[in-house]
């Protein structure tokens, strides 16, 4: 009785899923390109005061207005986007690599599983923003500390996903067959298990990138992230928060830029996983 329903719905959903896929990919791609090219196409040096007025609105001279010191927001945005995307991307890669490695090790069971699970439970039990505050209070706010903290906070999530996925696959017949064939553990993990969990892991990676971006922006917004004179998107919001009272573009544009990046990534993940599930059926 349940089967006809998804079958009937699939043809109608296909074009919509394609649309969100392309939209999400475009937004994420746009920010990636901006992170790479941004500083080269910036019209002004990001730290230079170029406007006599402060918080001036959008004009032909300053396409996104100017900030609390009279600096060009467009130029600052282009540099800030690179900080946000690069830091979040590196932290996510580190978190995913550590999480997947530990997850695959833990999936083979025994005492490594017990120790790793308890360890990551502990990290998880400290609220993430709180954890960031403690680490940065102790070590100071530098880009390295920032990346390390972000990666550490989101390793447990990647660990859990990888472990659960690997446990599911390990129970399947072809792994038993490989084991019976006498293959070594690295071969089984890399050639038998990993290719079968790559799709869900990619979705998890995207989701973790969203979380990392949000936490990084939150930390920067509290003044604990990227330190002046440099600024990421969250720090731009913090700098210009005084302009909120009269709706200055200097505070709104960076805030919505973060939102567009994270929403775009979410759209991409949703559409991609919907498509993968549709394809397997």
């Amino acid at each position, binding site marked *: 009785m349940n089967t006809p329903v998804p079958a009937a719905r699939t043809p109608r959903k296909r074009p919509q899923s394609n649309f969100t896929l392309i939209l999400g990919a475009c937004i994420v791609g746009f920010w990636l390109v901006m992170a790479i090219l941004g500083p080269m196409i910036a019209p002004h040096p990001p730290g230079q005061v170029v406007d006599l007025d402060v918080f001036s609105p959008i004009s032909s001279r300053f396409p996104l207005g100017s900030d609390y010191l009279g600096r060009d927001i467009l130029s600052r945005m282009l540099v800030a986007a690179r900080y946000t995307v690069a830091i979040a991307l590196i932290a996510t890669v580190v978190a995913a690599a550590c999480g997947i490695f530990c997850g695959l090790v833990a999936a083979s069971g025994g005492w490594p599983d017990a120790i790793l699970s308890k360890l990551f439970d502990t990290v998880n039990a400290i609220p993430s*923003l709180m954890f960031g505050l*403690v680490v940065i209070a102790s070590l100071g706010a530098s880009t390295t500390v920032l990346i390390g903290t972000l990666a550490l906070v989101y390793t447990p999530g990647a660990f859990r996903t990888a472990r659960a996925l690997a446990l599911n696959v390990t129970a399947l017949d072809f792994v038993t067959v490989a084991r019976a064939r006498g293959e070594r553990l690295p071969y089984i993990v890399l050639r038998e298990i990993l290719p079968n969990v790559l799709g869900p892991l990619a979705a998890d990676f995207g989701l973790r990138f969203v979380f990392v971006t949000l936490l990084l922006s939150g930390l920067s917004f509290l003044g604990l992230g990227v330190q002046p004179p440099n600024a990421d998107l969250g720090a731009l919001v913090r700098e210009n928060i005084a302009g909120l009272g009269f709706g200055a573009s200097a505070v709104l544009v960076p805030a919505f830029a*973060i939102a567009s990046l994270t929403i775009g990534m*979410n759209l991409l993940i949703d559409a991609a996983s919907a498509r993968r599930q549709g394809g397997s059926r």
Partner: protein
Amino acid sequence: MRLVARRIGGALLTLFLVSLAVFSISLLMGGDAAEAILGQSATPEALAGLRAAMHLDQPSYTRYLAWAGGLLRGHLGTSLITGLPIADMIGPRLASSLQLAGLAALVSVPVALALGIIAAVKRGSMLDRAISMATIAVVSVPEFLIATVAVLIFAVTLHWLPALSSSRDIYSITDLVRVFAMPVMTLACVVVAQMIRMTRAAVCDALDSSYVEAARLKGVSPSRLVLRHALPNAIGPIANAIALSLSILLGGVIVIEVIFNYPGIARLMVDAVSTRDLPLIQTVAMIFSATYLLLVTIADIVAILSNPRLRHR
């Protein structure tokens, strides 16, 4: 019952590991508290004297035992910067943070449960799609964006509410509403979105199961189907969803208190970080982690008690 005891034991073990982690992270700090207090021009004798007075000359494990033992007996230590007992500094702040979080929870839990269940029951409808889109948008946006947009609309454009809140000048119910409206709304917004998504998933799972299918074929009315057949089995996952969302509230409260200049415990923490007041930071971090573990453990226990198969083990 044994299962419940094991969960509580596990939570206590995690709390112990958290305290170890928090303590050892603060050991990593370059320099020590005595240098921070006396400054660079302090004589070595003065430094040594202060270190002895603060027990900093003892090995780290005795200091950990002293600190953890103090926490257990309610001696939270004194702040490095103000010299006041931490318990006195935290007390009123904690109360006002709990007020804020409590109000947000009170608003968000019923709304989220209702919308989540409706979305699951009317799966695939326009309403469900609209709710899904809205929750995805809210979940993937930083808290401070929601807060700034709320300030922009309600304080700057419409002049309905004050942009800053402090619980000091409250003389009537309307004052109370005006002060709390925006922080609570912003906080609730974030939590509700998360909770709707998880509740919807839990109820959808229950509705997909074969016993609900059987009940449907038996001709049970739709409302009875949801309330009597599906919901009791979704209580565990829903309790889990509530606990996890409320733990998001713990993080959200930090940003919200800073934006609205609300005198709560999270702002105390942020200020402590900028002055590097480690005893205060450690204590507040422990309070947050303990609260999180409490929420998760309660959800676990509710899940066990609501499931007859686990209850009688």
